[in-house]
């Protein structure tokens, strides 16, 4: 039998790129993801069948597949509900990676491979079959996808249990205990801890599972169940209701797509204020992992963000937008770590959706500065990264067309006016992040810096070629850096609390709002750039490698009207620091020169900035000068 290939209309492709897709397209992506899931399961089955030693104390994977086939014959919808459950995809991909040596875990392989028995049991229960099966027990827990988990007395971390369903009910029996379930509690889905978040507003309904128990919900490594408390569940539902009210009322187009795509929310503990954490995976279409949100708006924006990833992931399963690169890493304005090309594309599309969200939010609530700020920040960030991506040879013809669609919509947004105060804060946050990122990840050869320092000391102008000295990305790239988010978090605090930027005073404890804030930040926010520059400089005199103060200096000089210095900080802050570092020991050698030290950074920045006058202010790649 010759199987057909999926086809995507040019119109759908262009609609997705332009951000004007609707629920019908979302349904077509769901259909293609059903195929993707079946290819994944077939690949897993092939890989597992080639390794006969994998069954362990369980029956074979073919036995599990037999039960799936029986379930599908009885009810195709029941089998599909389980197979297409997002976390079944996460399990299958994780296990396939384990089988291919790309993942490691404490559990024996048969525990992960044998989860296929749990998938089959879930499908069989849904289909209403009577059957017997053997399932793996992970640390005393059996989790059936789409149902929930059962606890069994156990002594070893990895055991097996027999699951039987008859006309009278179900029984899960392990070596050290058993659980009986009345028939109704299985088929009516009254499984212990099975949870859903459901909300209906403005004629639209969103209903997702809240999966806090599935072992594969954290993508990278299996995890034990961590059921949210009833009080936490109530807060989730309240936030979910409010978020859906907001989405369905103010963002009906995005809400309709969300309703068609979102299937599972995977909750984790609350993160820092304004520092939400979330993730999605192309292996688990429709699942969104997120920290407990600060508020309904953050929950709504997170759903939009992650489901943009889902849409692009599904598109990439159909069409190649970029070829594999050579492991180069790039700057992304929304990340603290360097990112590979494919991830950069994902970020563009996610924040393209986020920009659309905030564009609508500010239109509905023009008096709220938050919307203006977020819109201004992300539209520029997306544009900057698109400009990087379109220069890359890895981008395919379709990839170029996709980004053209994004850019066409974005160009219109970039032309829209934004209140001056919001635009100033957004530009500052963007500059702060770019400067801080480069200072944390890029270094300049001390020899090259010393040569430039000699030229500076001799009073020579900068030789153009001298500034072509490379900035190297530290390898391996540091994935965990701190402090980059301090000022952006502080600004979000002020905007959300409707405190004017001049509101918090120096007499306040600066770190009270956001850890890491210093007094100079408050001077800068209040518009006193001279005091801010003096404060950041004083901090650097005490702690020359204080990166927060270095990037603060860039912001202060921007307000003080120092175009050459700002050009240097915006383009090559690591070079300014390296040359200053080369000069600083001499400057502090004696009393006569020590007095010059506070202004030395500005002098160096002006000197380098003058040499950079003909250069772009947004370098396209960190490894390029």
């Amino acid at each position, binding site marked *: *039998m*010759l*199987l*057909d*290939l*999926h*086809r995507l*209309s*040019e*119109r759908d*492709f262009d609609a997705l790129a332009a951000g004007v897709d609707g629920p019908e397209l979302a349904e077509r992506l769901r*259909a*293609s993801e*059903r*195929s993707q899931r*079946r*290819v994944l399961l*077939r*690949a897993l*089955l*092939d890989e597992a069948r080639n390794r006969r030693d994998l069954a362990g104390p369980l029956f074979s994977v*073919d036995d599990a*597949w037999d039960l*799936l*086939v029986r379930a*599908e014959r009885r009810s195709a919808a029941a*089998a599909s509900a389980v197979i297409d459950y997002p976390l079944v995809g996460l399990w299958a*991909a994780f296990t*396939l990676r384990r089988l*291919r040596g*790309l*993942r490691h875990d404490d559990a024996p392989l048969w525990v992960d491979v044998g989860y296929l028995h749990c998938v089959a049991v879930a499908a069989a229960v849904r289909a209403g079959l009577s059957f017997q099966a053997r399932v793996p027990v992970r640390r005393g827990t059996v989790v059936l996808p789409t149902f929930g988990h059962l606890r069994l007395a156990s002594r070893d971390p990895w055991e097996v249990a027999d699951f039987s369903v008859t006309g009278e009910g179900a029984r899960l029996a392990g070596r050290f205990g058993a659980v009986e379930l009345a028939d109704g509690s299985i088929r009516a889905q009254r499984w212990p801890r099975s949870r859903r978040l459901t909300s209906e507003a403005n004629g639209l309904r969103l209903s997702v599972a809240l999966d806090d128990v599935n072992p594969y919900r*954290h*993508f*990278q490594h299996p995890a034990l169940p961590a059921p949210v408390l009833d009080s936490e569940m109530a807060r989730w539902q309240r936030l979910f209701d409010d978020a859906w009210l907001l989405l369905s009322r103010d963002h009906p187009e995005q809400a309709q797509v969300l309703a068609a795509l979102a299937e599972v929310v995977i909750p984790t503990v609350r993160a820092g204020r304004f520092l*939400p*954490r*979330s*993730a*999605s*995976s*192309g*292996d688990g279409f429709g699942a969104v*992992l997120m920290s407990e949100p600060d508020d309904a708006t953050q929950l709504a924006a997170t759903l939009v*963000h992650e489901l943009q990833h889902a849409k692009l*992931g599904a598109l*990439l*399963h*159909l*069409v*190649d937008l*970029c070829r594999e690169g050579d492991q180069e890493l790039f700057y992304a304005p929304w990340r603290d770590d360097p990112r*590979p*090309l*494919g*991830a950069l594309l*994902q970020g563009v599309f*996610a924040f393209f959706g986020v920009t659309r969200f905030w564009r609508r939010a500010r239109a509905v609530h023009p008096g709220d500065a938050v919307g203006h700020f977020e819109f201004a920040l992300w539209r520029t960030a997306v544009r900057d990264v698109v400009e990087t991506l379109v220069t890359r040879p890895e981008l395919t013809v379709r990839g170029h067309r996709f980004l053209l669609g994004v850019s066409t919509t974005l160009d219109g947004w970039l032309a829209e006016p934004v209140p001056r105060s919001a635009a100033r804060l957004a530009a500052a946050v963007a500059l702060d992040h770019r400067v801080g990122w480069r200072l944390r990840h890029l270094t300049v050869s001390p020899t090259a810096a010393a040569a430039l320092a000699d030229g500076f000391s001799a009073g020579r102008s900068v030789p153009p070629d001298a500034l072509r000295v490379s900035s190297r990305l530290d390898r391996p790239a540091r*994935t*965990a850096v701190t402090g980059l988010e301090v000022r952006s978090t502080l600004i979000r605090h002020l905007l959300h609390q409707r405190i004017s930027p001049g509101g918090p005073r120096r007499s306040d404890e600066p770190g009270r709002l956001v850890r890491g804030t210093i007094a100079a930040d408050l001077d800068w926010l209040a518009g006193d750039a001279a005091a801010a520059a003096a404060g950041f400089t004083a901090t650097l005199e005490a702690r020359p490698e204080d990166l927060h103060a270095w990037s603060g200096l860039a912001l202060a000089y921007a307000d003080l009207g120092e175009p050459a210095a700002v050009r240097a900080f915006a383009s090559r802050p690591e070079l300014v620091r390296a040359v200053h570092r080369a000069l600083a020991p001499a400057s502090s050698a004696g009393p006569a020169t020590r007095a010059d030290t506070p202004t030395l950074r500005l002098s160096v920045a002006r000197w380098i900035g003058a040499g950079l006058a003909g250069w772009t202010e947004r370098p396209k790649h960190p490894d390029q000068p």
Partner: protein
Amino acid sequence: MPATESLIECSLIDLNSTSLEELRTSEGERLRIAVEKLLRQIDDPENRFGGYRGDVDWRLG
């Protein structure tokens, strides 16, 4: 969609009408190519099909 609409032929095989029983034993070039492509995606260290925001411990494979 209208029959005259321009379509992009994708590399993903359409298995929406294939039963699980057929899926287990199906052979053929298109399925083989789809599985090979999927394995390349599985092996991709960048995992460019999803995204994450926040703490790097959440980084996807």
